């Protein structure tokens, strides 16, 4: 196997990984702080993709619209997240996790059908923004500029989020809410607002990922249900609620998927699941997580 081919596989895996990181990071943040496993996170991602497509259609005559469309889609999903959290989810925090799980699943059902009603079932796609249309030749493989952008965006967001979590007052409050909600509330912090904020940020990230994926993947019904499983695997590999765990989990997922195809053709999906199984058995709290109580 030529080295350039292997390098190409590596880059492909890295692009997948950074997309997954954008999605899984939101899932992991909400789980880490609120202990809610949000199945609807994949639906937010799908709505982000559809909104981006819609915004491109509307904006095209006015301004060449990819970047504004991405921003609009992410903000639209953030607004959706805000409404969902304020109106419904917040009433379930005191209830058993069973009800929270089923609530987010109800959202999956409703949003999936809403998207079908609004945009139909045909495949939609968005063309790459002109500024990133080209590609680079690196070590004998061509890397599309758009993929390079995604590869750089992933770590940028990771570092930004990490700085926000560790260096800012709001970030400290978020981490405190993750550790002990009641104590933080007793100290006078507005825990409800922190939860709303986390959910909105998480929805924003899901919408952003959905909007950014449109140039390289077509938008289809069912992308919500399949992506949430991938994001779930990433989060489990990295460690539930662990921020850097999610990052490295995505990188590992991407590489295992892209090299798994070479080792077991047709079984690449299986190689990822097998990795997850081994991690769950050996370290149920994930590679970077802390042991559970």
């Amino acid at each position, binding site marked *: 196997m030529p080295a350039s081919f292997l390098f190409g596989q590596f880059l492909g895996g890295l692009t997948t990984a950074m997309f997954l990181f954008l999605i899984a990071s939101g899932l992991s943040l909400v789980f880490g702080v609120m*202990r809610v*496993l949000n*199945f609807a996170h994949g639906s937010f991602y799908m709505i982000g993709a559809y909104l981006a497509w819609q915004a491109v259609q509307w904006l095209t005559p006015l301004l060449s619209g990819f970047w504004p469309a991405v921003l609009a889609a992410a903000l639209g999903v953030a607004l959706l997240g805000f409404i969902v959290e304020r109106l*419904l989810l917040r*009433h*379930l925090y005191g*209830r*058993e*996790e*069973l*009800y929270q*799980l*089923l*609530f987010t*699943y*109800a*959202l*999956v*059902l*409703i949003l*999936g*059908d*809403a998207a*079908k*009603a609004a945009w139909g079932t045909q495949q939609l796609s968005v063309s790459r923004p002109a500024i990133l249309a080209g590609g680079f030749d690196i070590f004998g493989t061509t890397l599309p500029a758009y993929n390079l952008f995604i590869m750089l965006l992933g770590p940028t967001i990771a570092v930004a989020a990490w700085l926000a979590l560790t260096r800012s007052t709001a970030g400290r409050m978020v981490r405190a809410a993750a550790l002990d909600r009641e104590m933080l509330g007793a100290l006078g912090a507005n825990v409800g607002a922190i939860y709303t904020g986390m959910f909105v940020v998480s929805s924003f990230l899901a919408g952003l990922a959905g909007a950014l994926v449109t140039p390289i993947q077509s938008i289809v019904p069912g992308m919500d*249900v399949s992506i949430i*499983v991938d994001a*779930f*695997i990433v989060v*489990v590999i990295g460690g*539930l609620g662990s921020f850097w765990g999610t990052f490295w989990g995505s990188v590992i997922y991407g590489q295992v998927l892209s090299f798994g195809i070479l080792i077991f053709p*047709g*079984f690449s*999906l*299986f190689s*990822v*699941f*097998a990795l*997850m*199984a081994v991690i*769950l*058995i050996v370290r*149920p709290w994930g590679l970077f997580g802390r042991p*559970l*109580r």
Partner: protein
Amino acid sequence: MMPRGEALLRRIPWTLVVFLAALVVPWLGSRYDTLIATLIAIDALFAVSLNLLLGTTGLVSFGHVAYFGIGAYICGILMKTYGVAFTLALPAAALGTAAFALVFGFFCVRLIRIYFAMLTLAFSQIVWAICYKWNDVTGGDQGLPNVPYPDFDWLSAVPWFGDLRVDDQFYLLTIVIVALSLAAMQRIIGSPFGRMLTTIRENPERAAFIGINVRAYELAAFVVAGGFAGIAGALFGISSRGVFSDFVYWPKSAEVMIMTILGGMEHFWGPVVGAATLVLLNDKITSYTEYWPLVLGIILLVLLFAFPGGIVGGIVAGVSRLRRRAGRRARA
């Protein structure tokens, strides 16, 4: 003192009435009614098996579909690929599924609450990935079509039963198997073992303090629930004439959970009511609109926010409220 009407209502053996009513469906109803009744019976068994974990033991398994699917595949592969008789394939499916549940459950019961739910989900997705990709054994994404019906030739000599269609005959077999399984589960829940499970649900720490091996009990419940889910899956594979990887896909775990909650998980018959309601609703609503998931999502929201006790829980609460009011009036 109970009012006379109520005492009379209580004297009727309702379980037997429902069972007998289910038995006559092939003679009174259409072929389509039989199909719907078969689905209800299978889903009822599946939902009750989940409720052994959810309602009785307090374990939120979000991967129960794995055992349904494994049962379907074991039975389907044995009957189709190896030509094994149903009388052997069904017990093999139940035991095989229970064995898988033992292995997966061993790891799952070491975790608690939401982590337990996630690990069960993860295992069910692993099972799905294997079923979806292992072409040589499971047929991969093509599935395993044309699983044969059990051999009913011996019935042809029996009057009444001999001239029934084969799907009606299979329905009767399903009803009997489901009834026996439900009876077995009711016995298990009522046994000292079942009481221990309820103790664990109510307070695992206290259960551990009085010397109960909580994990071992939870694992046992997991294995039993898995085995019965396997039976439901095996029946479903035959009745739907094939086994496909969708049987194991995660949304189906949510679906059976919705059935359980809809009926009410605090009562043994709740999941049965939930399964029947959901299958009938699905049948009615899909004939008007393609947006069944939307309707289901809204039902689920209403259920979560307004009726967390489900249908049976709601009825029980309503009846006790009526009785209290009647008692007050009698005293006044």
